[in-house]
């Protein structure tokens, strides 16, 4: 996916493809997101959310972060969305599809969304100097390595996030134990 290699062999396809794929994936993500909130059927919403998550994984790939993309697919699309679907299917869904799709106070929501959009636009225009004008071309094999170094440390020292990583895993353990205790009828 390195544009340098592409121009050497293929000839002229890379930059257009990058832009094309960016707009494609971004458009899919936005369309999926819109579908999530507008569908009546909860399962349709969940499937649209999967589309959004997969598009975001593609965007990660374009940012030369293949490890994050892979983990996004495994954890989000393959684990969390399956859980969502389980819950949707086990809960009585027919009544919810007959209710109103949008909340009665939707103008307030629209105002809040527009405020957020204005905030993003102002940050983008005011801070334009911070964004580089060209994407940094990283070597491909390093995303996994870099994440590993940051999380686990390298050359015998602790990395910058090792402690946070261990604490986070302890928190997850506590959450799992709590879920088990709350749902089992008898231990």
């Amino acid at each position, binding site marked *: 996916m390195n544009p340098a290699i592409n121009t050497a062999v293929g000839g002229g396809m890379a930059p257009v493809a990058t832009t094309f794929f960016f707009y494609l994936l971004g458009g899919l993500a936005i369309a999926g997101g819109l579908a999530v909130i507008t569908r009546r059927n909860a399962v349709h919403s969940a499937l649209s959310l999967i589309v959004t998550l997969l598009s975001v994984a593609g965007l990660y790939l374009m940012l030369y972060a293949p490890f994050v993309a892979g983990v996004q*697919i495994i954890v989000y*699309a*393959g684990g969390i969305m*399956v859980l969502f*679907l*389980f819950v949707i*299917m086990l809960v009585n869904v027919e009544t919810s599809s007959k209710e109103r799709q949008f909340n009665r106070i939707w103008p307030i929501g629209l105002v809040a969304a527009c405020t957020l959009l204005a905030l993003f636009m102002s940050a983008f225009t005011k801070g334009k100097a911070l964004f580089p004008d060209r994407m940094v071309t990283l070597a491909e094999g390093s995303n*996994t390595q870099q994440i590993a170094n940051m999380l686990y440390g390298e050359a015998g020292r602790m990395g910058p996030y090792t402690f946070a990583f261990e604490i986070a895993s302890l928190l997850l353990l506590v959450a799992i134990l709590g879920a088990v205790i709350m749902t089992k009828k008898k231990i």
Partner: protein
Amino acid sequence: MPNFIMSYLGSTVTPGQAGNQFWALIYVLIIFAGVSVAVMAMNWLERKSLAHFQIRLGPMRVGPHGLLQPFADALKLMLKEDIIPAEADQFVFWIAPLIGLLASFTVYTVIPFGPSEAVSDMNIGILFMLGISSLAVLGIVVAGWASNSHYPLIGALRSSAQMVSYEVAMGLAVVSAILMTSLNEKGTGTLSMIGIVQAQQQQGIWFIFKFFPLGFLAFAIFAVAMVAETNRAPFDMAEAESELTAGYHTEYSGFRWSLFMLAEYAAMIAVSSIAVTLWLGGWMRPFPNLLHAPAWDFIFSLFPGLTFGGLAAIAVLGTVRMPSHSFFKIQRFGLAAFAALLGFIALLLLVIALAGRSADASLAARFSEGIGHVYWFMLKVAVFMYLFIWYRATWPRYRFDQLMRIGWKVMLPISLGVLMLTAIVGVIIS
């Protein structure tokens, strides 16, 4: 343009690495056709093997020894009436088999049939495979939902719960194999499939034998988890006919059902390929480092031709033993033609192996080497396919709660233990 096409032929990397989209497309088409043929062959093999295990003959009429049976089945399924339950969700009903099919087939883009015989060698290859396999679960869940019927829904939820549970153990077993790839001088492992096989080549040992019994345990866990992952016996409670819950594909008829079966068999081949790549040395012939004289290379390069020659001999034997009644004339002719085809392929392979004897970079040598890679890989995968069928013929099935208990209470602790021990031993050794 012809320059673009031809420029790939000399390279030693996959089309993905070389950025050559044309050859990547060719490889994808070859893999698609190959997997379809493999699934049909697997269907035939399963029916004949099960029948022989059960002391009966299996399909014998449709084509000599039932060889055309998969075609007849495919034709029948395509011509069947497409029944959709009235209350079913049309769009979701349509898309469910496609999700499973897409997931099962997308995995093949990273499977390495050789050092450069893969569509693309992603540097997160194994991660990609695990991720796409977990997408297959969605297809099942959605299929059960779309049937709008109580029992398929329960069956689908059970199947997907089973798959998700065994994915955990599978992933941990895979990680312990990945750990072994980092036992080289640089100390860096790799997630790419081709890199894993090359690591086995460098370390001179298949990972199944490394740190015995740790490698073997990891392989055994993966071997059991992959049977549960593909919903095959003895873990096929969710789709068994004699149980109360009917299975997620009950409401699917005709072509849609065949898509599910296609996805299941393709997933079987895919997970077997992962097992072969991670633990059994991928495309490497036996003893590539120990017996590396050119004579040994030549002997092992004869194996593809000899295998097809053996198959041709079996077909000839079948022709000779067929009853010499006029009813069997067409079948004898068909089987003889099939034997001739196999013999021709055998001859071709032997000629290529002979021509590529010397270790220079001539076209025949490169062909012979590539064919050897693909052959050894497919041989190992074929052993796994036969094991799948053997398991189904021999063993009863586990009850669902026993299945889940094994997945969480037996597989997971063992795989965690193997992972930790592998890491400890790896650090001590290096």
